[in-house]
């Protein structure tokens, strides 16, 4: 099932002009606050009626301004996880979970065994001990988990998540992220996930749609989009870096290390602090520019675990620093890494484009 969205909407000075398609899995709508992402999900849910456009889920046209189609929210069958949870305060957790299921009992019956069961949702999201409580007695993370469960149980054909972690503290964020990751693999639904957090994109996204000033400027695989539009990330990442898709090759339990293969190539390996996941699992990592050092000769007797051969492609002058881009040798995908070094070092090493170098990677930000 695919989702096609084309929207134009104006309010005040702000103009939204968005167009993208999303398939199964998590499509992150990513961009700074105020770039129009929430407006898009509100339009998809039907809570906001855009000035013009077309929204199609599978074979169903939910909105088409040209044809005069605008399905009301309650007929769209789109689950919505709000930033502020919005649980019904006068109902218990169990009643909240079953609210949408009861309203959509016909769809649930039609779906038969395809409809996700209450017991399963309670189990996966660990809600068992909360069922008889009311939302007023839940923590932020618990509320958000109930909100996710409630949306899942309402027999949706797609899910919208509008910054579901933004109002949580760090510990709760990690907790809910963990649950999201768990359900992500089970869901056979398109999910539009609004966020301005690079970390969440790295951990959850199968696809990224990049927003800027009310426009969709790029969409595609996370690593491609994120590495191509680095300016869009400057505000979001604590430090600029390169996103790499890797695969877990082995765990070294005694040293607490995990070995990763970059882009599925067998020759380029990275060793990182223990990552969670099974052997063979995909793992997306961020290699920060400041954590990459450059050497012109193979280093000996070094504590740095990761030494990769690469060829310098460009040097960018940043004043006192130089940003070195280099493609990894032996990688058919032509992955490029970037390093930030002092101009003094760049001059000492006489770096030029085309020069073969060794990239020394001290540590990487793991996202799983």
């Amino acid at each position, binding site marked *: 099932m695919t989702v096609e969205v084309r929207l134009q909407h104006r309010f005040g000075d702000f103009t939204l002009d968005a167009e993208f398609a999303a398939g199964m899995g998590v499509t992150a709508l990513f961009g700074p606050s105020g770039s129009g992402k929430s407006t898009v999900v509100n339009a998809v*849910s*039907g*809570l906001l009626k855009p000035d013009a456009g077309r929204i199609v889920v599978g074979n169903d046209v939910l909105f088409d301004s040209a044809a005069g189609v605008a399905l*009301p*929210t*309650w007929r*769209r*069958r*789109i*689950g*919505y996880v*709000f930033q*502020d949870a*919005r*649980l*019904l*305060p*006068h109902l*218990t957790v169990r009643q909240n979970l079953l*609210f*949408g299921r009861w*309203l*959509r009992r016909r769809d649930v019956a039609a779906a038969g065994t395809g409809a996700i069961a209450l017991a399963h949702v309670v189990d996966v999201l660990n809600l068992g001990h909360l069922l*008889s*409580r*009311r*939302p*007023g*007695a*839940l923590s932020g993370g618990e509320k958000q988990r109930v909100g996710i469960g*409630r*949306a899942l149980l*309402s027999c949706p054909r797609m899910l919208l998540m509008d910054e579901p972690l933004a109002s949580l503290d760090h510990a709760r964020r990690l907790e809910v992220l963990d649950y999201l990751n768990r359900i992500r693999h089970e869901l056979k639904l398109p999910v539009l996930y609004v966020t301005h957090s690079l970390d969440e994109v790295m951990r959850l996204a199968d696809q990224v749609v990049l927003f800027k000033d009310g426009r969709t400027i790029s969409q595609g695989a996370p690593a491609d989009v994120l590495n191509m539009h680095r300016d869009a990330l400057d505000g979001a990442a604590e430090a600029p870096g390169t996103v790499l898709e890797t695969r877990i090759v082995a765990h070294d339990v005694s040293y607490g290390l995990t070995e990763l293969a970059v882009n599925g190539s067998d020759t380029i390996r990275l060793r990182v602090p223990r990552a969670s996941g099974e052997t063979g699992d995909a793992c997306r990592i961020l290699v920060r520019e400041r954590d990459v050092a450059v050497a012109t000769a193979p280093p000996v007797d070094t504590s740095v675990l990761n030494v990769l051969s690469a060829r310098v492609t460009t040097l960018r002058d940043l004043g006192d620093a130089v940003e070195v881009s280099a493609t990894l040798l032996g990688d058919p995908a032509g992955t490029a890494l970037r390093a930030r070094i002092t101009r003094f070092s760049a001059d000492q090493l006489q770096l030029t484009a085309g020069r073969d170098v060794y990239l020394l990677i001290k540590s990487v930000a793991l996202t799983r």
Partner: protein
Amino acid sequence: MFMSLSPEEWGIVELSLRIGLWGTLCSLPFAYAAAWLLARRHFPGKALLDAILHLPLVLPPVVVGFALLVLFGAQGAIGKLLREWFNFTFAFRWTGAALAAGVMGFPLLVRAIRQALEASDTKLEQAAQTLGAGPWLTFLTVTLPLSATGVMHGFVLAFARALGEFGATITFVSNIPGQTQTLPLAIYTATQVPDGDAMVWRLCAISVVLAVATLIFSEVLIRFGNRKALGYDG
């Protein structure tokens, strides 16, 4: 004390409660609709509607009673139609007293419900819609329960006001024992007879007891409602 009430006094209490309850109950749906319009909708003439709804609160009750007489009396514009079509009359009957009571309490009911609706978050209604609730189901499952405390508050105020209603009632449906003579009217009547002092005292005491009982009842209900909403009963 209630044990020693005379059948006549019991009759007055029963009539007063009947008039107060029916009057307030029947005005409730209209009050809710008006409160919802004022809290949730923007339309031209909203300020005017707000002002008109408040009239019973600010006008002398006698004026309201006279207006009811003109509209709903036996010869009144609406009263005539009701008699011809439904063979129903307000004039000089307890139903008329209930109408007067309902009208006088109406603004209090509207104000309390409006406040509750303004305080309840429309975002919750949106959430219900994403889960499949249409407008009516959203109203029944979200809007109404979340404004229940306000409804209760307003109901108690309006009911108390209805129990005390005097001016509009006596102007509209007169002072007829067993039909329109509620507690305040009975007290007034007793003060007009030479040896009515004892009766006045007894009826005043009954009024106080009724008022206090109403307040306590509402307080209990509201506390119960709040406990539930805050999640302490899990």
